[in-house]
């Protein structure tokens, strides 16, 4: 499949791992929702950083430190620009989406939540957007409320208005589900929440790898994602928040770098973003994330998304021909994430079998146990596609699933 401006062979050549073999088979990496592979430019940026640029930032007068501080802060601006944020100081570097959500949930617990308040999430959240809120509810005496999911894996929009009420202090939901692929109508949901003055946290972990987002247009109050799902390194992530909200929240951790003045009589904290970045940050991660964003900027993302949607369509059609196979998550708006189950066959056995052909998929609960339980599954098999996956790889997947169906009889 060749799109104008999108040459799949050239794109694949940018990702060294895609040329790997596994037990005599070409690697077919279809576990992109778990973590994405890294282009050579990211790998090279990390090498260059360690080999030529390493220093600590924000605290040196020497060349290396000044140079790196600049690169670090430039990346912050690059991230802001990438997600449509107007003010780079609203971009906080964290360890990942999980830490970003924990930062907000702990801040809310300390500064905002009171007995009788409500926190609203959805039934399709990743554990990262459930557990921190459960703990927040437990500590503050607030109640956790949940928007149900319909049979096709879309959100029950009709249930939302009644769940957003005068006691709701935050609505935290996933933009794109890592298990179902469902793309939630974020703009509409945010408008509904704002009509009642309720702030919104959007978990963008699974949207940024597929589509360009604009937090100013979305008008959410917080937006979080992980670098490693965005073709960058692990251990680095982003929390973006509106200044007025970030200023209301207390520091998350404390120590060096986040203070203005320390005195045993009292300490004053830095403003944004320093207030939330205590200690020496993951500088290499930030540099690597910057390289990943640069890579994506060089890509025709509209064409890349069209390619992914084609992969999803072909895979869906091909897999549905396998006897006894059904797809979990058939919402009309879907990212290239395909969860499936096969009658009489456990997802783990599917995963092991496909692995023997060099095909990497995920088998399990995908950190969404409440969602799976609601639909009566303990686990599903999940293939998730990135723009660098090819139609040949999809065909390989479909053929291997047919083969395993025969093997297990």
């Amino acid at each position, binding site marked *: 499949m060749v799109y104008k401006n999108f040459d799949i062979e050239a794109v694949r050549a940018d990702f060294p791992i895609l040329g790997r073999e*596994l*037990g*005599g088979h070409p690697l077919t990496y279809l576990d992109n929702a778990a973590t994405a592979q890294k282009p050579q430019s990211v790998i090279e940026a990390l090498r260059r950083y360690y080999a030529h640029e390493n220093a600590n930032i924000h605290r040196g007068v020497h060349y290396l430190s000044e140079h790196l501080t600049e690169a670090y802060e430039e990346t912050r601006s690059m991230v802001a620009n990438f997600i449509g944020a107007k003010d780079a100081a609203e971009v906080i570097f964290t360890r990942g989406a999980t830490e970003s959500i924990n930062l907000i949930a702990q801040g809310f617990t300390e500064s905002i939540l009171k007995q009788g308040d409500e926190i609203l999430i959805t039934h399709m959240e990743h554990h990262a957007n459930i557990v921190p809120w459960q703990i927040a509810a437990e500590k503050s005496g607030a109640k956790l409320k949940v928007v149900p999911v319909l049979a096709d894996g879309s959100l029950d929009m009709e249930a939302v208005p009644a769940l957003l009420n005068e006691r709701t202090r935050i609505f935290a939901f996933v933009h794109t589900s890592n298990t179902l692929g469902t793309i939630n109508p974020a703009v509409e949901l945010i408008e509904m929440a704002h009509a009642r003055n309720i702030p919104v946290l959007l978990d963008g972990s699974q949207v940024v790898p597929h589509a360009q987002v604009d937090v100013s247009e979305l008008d959410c109050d917080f937006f979080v994602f992980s670098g490693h799902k965005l073709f960058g390194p692990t251990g680095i992530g982003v929390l973006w928040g509106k200044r007025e909200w970030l200023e209301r929240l207390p520091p998350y951790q404390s120590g060096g770098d986040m203070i203005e003045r320390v005195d045993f009589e009292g300490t004053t904290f830095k403003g944004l973003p320093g207030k939330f970045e205590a200690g020496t940050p993951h500088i290499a991660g930030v540099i690597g994330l910057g390289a990943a964003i640069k890579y994506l900027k060089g890509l025709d993302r509209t064409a890349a998304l069209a390619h992914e949607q084609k992969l999803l369509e072909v895979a869906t059609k091909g897999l549905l021909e396998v006897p006894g196979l059904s797809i979990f998550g058939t919402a009309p708006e879907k990212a290239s994430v395909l969860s499936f189950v096969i009658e009489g*066959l*456990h*997802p*783990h*056995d599917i995963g*092991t*079998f496909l*692995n*023997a052909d060099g095909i990497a998929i995920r*088998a*399990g*609960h995908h950190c969404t*146990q409440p969602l*799976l339980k609601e639909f009566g599954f*303990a*686990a599903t098999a999940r293939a998730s596609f990135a723009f660098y996956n090819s139609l040949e790889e999809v065909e390989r997947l479909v053929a291997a699933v047919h083969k395993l169906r025969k*093997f*297990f*009889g």
Partner: protein
Amino acid sequence: MKKDTESLRQLYQATILDHNKNPRHFGVLPEYTETIEGYNPLCGDKVTFYLKRVEGKLEAATFECAACAICKASASMLLELAMRDNFCSYKELHATGLGLLDGSQSDAGKAITELDALGGIRSFPSRIACARLAWDTLKPD
């Protein structure tokens, strides 16, 4: 290791496929006196044993599970062998099963060659936990 169809066959040997399709002692034991449940939080595999004890001594058991083929077959093999002598030599059987799975024992000995199928699982490290679940759940007294 080359994970081709050959080694898959080694993992899903006839014995395992058979136990998966036709699990022995499967279902709820009508006269059970207690249940015991094993759960693997990593993958969600769940095994439930229904036990019948007479004066404290384990005499019979059945199982149910929501689990993969390896886990199910392993539980079925465990009960098939244990029920042959109504759990009289369960301690030895249990030690052999775990020994095969952790590699400290290379074969199960003449009496229980069926268990040798468990040895094949060792070359699939991520699946050993599946095979162990039943054994870790139903420990000897």
